[in-house]
């Protein structure tokens, strides 16, 4: 295997892994901030107990998300130095802003929150979790601003052999940013919401700590439904954006080789034959693709063959068709899970309003594994978005194949790939292990007697975890 392929595998795997923790952090931070706000203003202890319980997950998750993020910043330079030279001027700035506006805020105030409860007035302590929550979203904004440049490069001029920024406002107003950023944040809120829903459901089925988990679930169901609807609307906006900015990605996501008819039908499933450039056994739904692409029931969509010819004229010889099967199926998995999220949270709210939540064991039991749904949706969303961008690393400007470090051997990348895979497997296992433990332990205070018996150095007032 060559360094290019290995570097791509590494970027994909480490980014997908990192993005398990990121959306959960963004989502949980918001939910916890809401819970603590209820505690401060309603003055009921149960909300504090709730805040503390969910915070334990957040802290473990946040730590792993933060440390895996370090490598995200480093690997552009390590594996993709040619890319870094080419885009640093415009792509680096949002990353620097992310550190200045978001990372300091998150890192400082999570410390303030963890250690400051007894030292700070209640409202200042509450403010610190809101600042963390805002920090996670600011962080998402800046990284999406950088990512949007790769899809829809704007605000630059080609000078000195690289893309130099000449219009920051254009970078901030990038159309891709304003469809992808809200989409990602809604997806993240849904991730946090479904986590809280699923864990709460696990307790409610067992009728344990109902006083804590019923309100937790209600808060999360509301956030879940709002996010689900948000995902759908911003997802639709993404499709309309793709039509004019990245039509090849759209055509690949539809498995559309030849131009569509007018109005265009949407292909639900198909057998994609990349070799013969056809999609067979299609199940088509009339009008829907026109609606997806243009928001109305007319208009045709260009196919990959037409676009390929256009791009050869524009960019020279080469294959401009991304991996079609991956783009096609990841789009369907993403959109499918998104739809299910809306239905599940709407149904849960319906049950809750009619006071039937506790009796609906099947629903509650189903919501436990449903924790995974947003993670699946998030991952396949990114796979669709970034695979669909190929062969470009920066759309129309630089190909992925030309972006790697010329001075890094395949052996080095392989060493790095193996090392990080091992470390990430350990980190993933630690997270799952601790999460399961926290869930089994429950929100009630630990009994300390057995601790003293097993460890002579432990005295009752030494605290573990966040109290």
């Amino acid at each position, binding site marked *: 295997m060559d360094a290019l392929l290995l570097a791509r595998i590494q970027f994909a795997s480490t980014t997908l892994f990192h993005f398990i923790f990121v959306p959960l952090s963004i989502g949980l931070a918001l939910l916890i901030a809401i819970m603590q706000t209820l505690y401060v203003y309603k003055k009921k202890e149960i909300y504090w107990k709730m805040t503390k319980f969910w915070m334990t997950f957040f802290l473990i998750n946040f730590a792993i998300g933060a440390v895996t993020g370090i490598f995200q910043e480093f690997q552009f330079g390590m594996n993709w130095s040619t890319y870094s030279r080419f885009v640093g001027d415009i792509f680096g700035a949002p990353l620097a802003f992310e550190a*200045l506006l978001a990372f300091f805020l998150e890192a400082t105030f999570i410390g303030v929150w963890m250690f400051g409860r007894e030292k700070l007035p209640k409202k200042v302590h509450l403010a610190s979790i809101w600042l963390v929550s805002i920090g996670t979203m600011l962080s998402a904004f800046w990284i999406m601003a950088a990512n949007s440049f790769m899809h829809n490069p704007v605000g630059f001029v080609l000078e000195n052999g690289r893309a130099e920024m000449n219009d920051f406002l254009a970078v901030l107003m990038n159309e891709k940013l304003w469809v992808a950023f809200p989409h990602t944040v809604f997806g993240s809120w849904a991730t946090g919401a479904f986590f809280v829903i699923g864990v709460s459901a696990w307790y409610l089925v067992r009728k344990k700590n109902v006083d804590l988990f019923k309100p937790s679930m209600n808060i999360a169901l509301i956030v879940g439904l709002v996010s689900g609807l948000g995902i759908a609307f911003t997802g639709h906006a993404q499709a309309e954006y793709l039509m004019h900015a990245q039509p090849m990605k759209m055509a690949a996501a539809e498995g559309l080789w030849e131009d569509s008819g007018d109005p265009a039908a949407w292909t639900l499933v198909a057998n994609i034959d990349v070799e013969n450039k056809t999609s067979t056994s299609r199940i088509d739904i009339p009008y829907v693709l026109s609606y997806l692409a243009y928001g109305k029931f007319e208009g045709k969509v260009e196919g990959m063959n037409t676009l390929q010819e256009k791009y050869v004229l524009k960019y020279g010889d080469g294959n401009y068709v991304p991996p079609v099967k991956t783009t096609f199926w990841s789009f369907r998995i993403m959109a499918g899970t998104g739809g299910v999220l809306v239905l599940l949270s709407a149904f849960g709210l319906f049950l809750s309003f009619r006071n039937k939540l506790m009796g609906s064991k099947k629903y509650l039991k189903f919501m436990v594994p449903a924790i995974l749904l947003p993670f699946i949706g998030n991952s396949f969303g990114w796979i669709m978005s970034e695979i669909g961008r190929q062969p470009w690393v920066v759309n129309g400007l630089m190909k992925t194949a030309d972006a790697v470090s010329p001075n890094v051997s395949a052996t080095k990348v392989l060493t790095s790939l193996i090392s990080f895979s091992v470390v990430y497997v350990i980190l993933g296992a630690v997270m799952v292990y601790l999460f399961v433990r926290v869930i089994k332990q429950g929100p009630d205070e630990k009994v300390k007697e057995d601790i003293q018996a097993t460890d002579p150095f432990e005295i009752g007032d030494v605290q573990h975890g966040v109290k």
Partner: protein
Amino acid sequence: MVLSELWFLLIAVLFVGFMFLEGFDFGVGMGSKFLAKNDAERQMLNNAIGPTWAGNEVWLITAGGAMFAAFPHWYATLFSGYYLPFLVLVIALMGRGVSLEVRSRIENEAWRKSWDWAMFMGSLLPPFLFGVLFSSLIKGLPIDAEMNMFAGFLDIVNVYTVVGGILFVALSYLHGLTFLSLKTEGEIRQRARSQAQKIYALTGLLLVVFTALTVVYTDAFAEKGMFLIPMYIVAGIVYIALLPLLRKGKEGLSFTMTGLVFIIVTASFFIALFPNVMISSLGEAHNMTVYEAASGAYSLKLMTIVAATMLPIILGYTIWSYYVFRKRVSTKGTEGY
């Protein structure tokens, strides 16, 4: 001063700030093996840096981001060239960060011992690697006409850089000890002070040896002597003043002194580098200057505005958080990991 020079200064400040702040965090982390005698003490060490270490680490992340944005060529050459050291660095920092969060969550000896090792290695390796990195930067590395660095093992790891690495470890530990004597109470506070006195001579010797090797292996003193000689004289005076302060138990001043030494030593590398960001061992023509490595004027101007706006705010809440957590920690603390 042109903006590229300003950004070189800013990145230097970020690295200096990082070494000053994380220097004592790393020292405290090393203390988990060398200083703490039992589980409660190890936990206390973690609590001593608990509220603030993550913010300190962001200085490095910001330095990396600022390098990427302000000096894309520097970032690209450095990060791809130092491939394996950075690999080890990132994994070490990962181990430390996760250890702090999860270590005390489970009452199990094997669990805690494993994470204590992660904490120790994650606190020992980064200062070593930064020492190696800074000293090899001023010694020069094989950088070709295309600005690519093809460094072999011995280009990065050699007598000079290893001494630099060990010096950074020793300085971090000394700095961590003075921090702990200021930040803890009880028996460990005394132990930190007496251990600081024990490693004082060795660290001083390392400082002298490293300075001598810098004269031998680099052009730093030959070219920048007018800045570096006074700086090292100040560092020497500060270091000599440290010993009586340690003996008298002037904890605040001792910490200030170890911090000052660390600041001067780290800053000296950037002074030695300037106006280069990378020195090529393949000939002066391949040196990469601040001006060649920098981003365009528009980008630098924008970042200057953002940084000038944000830095006072960041410094403000950072200082506030240190103020909130100014009290000494003990094994009887009620808030912590």
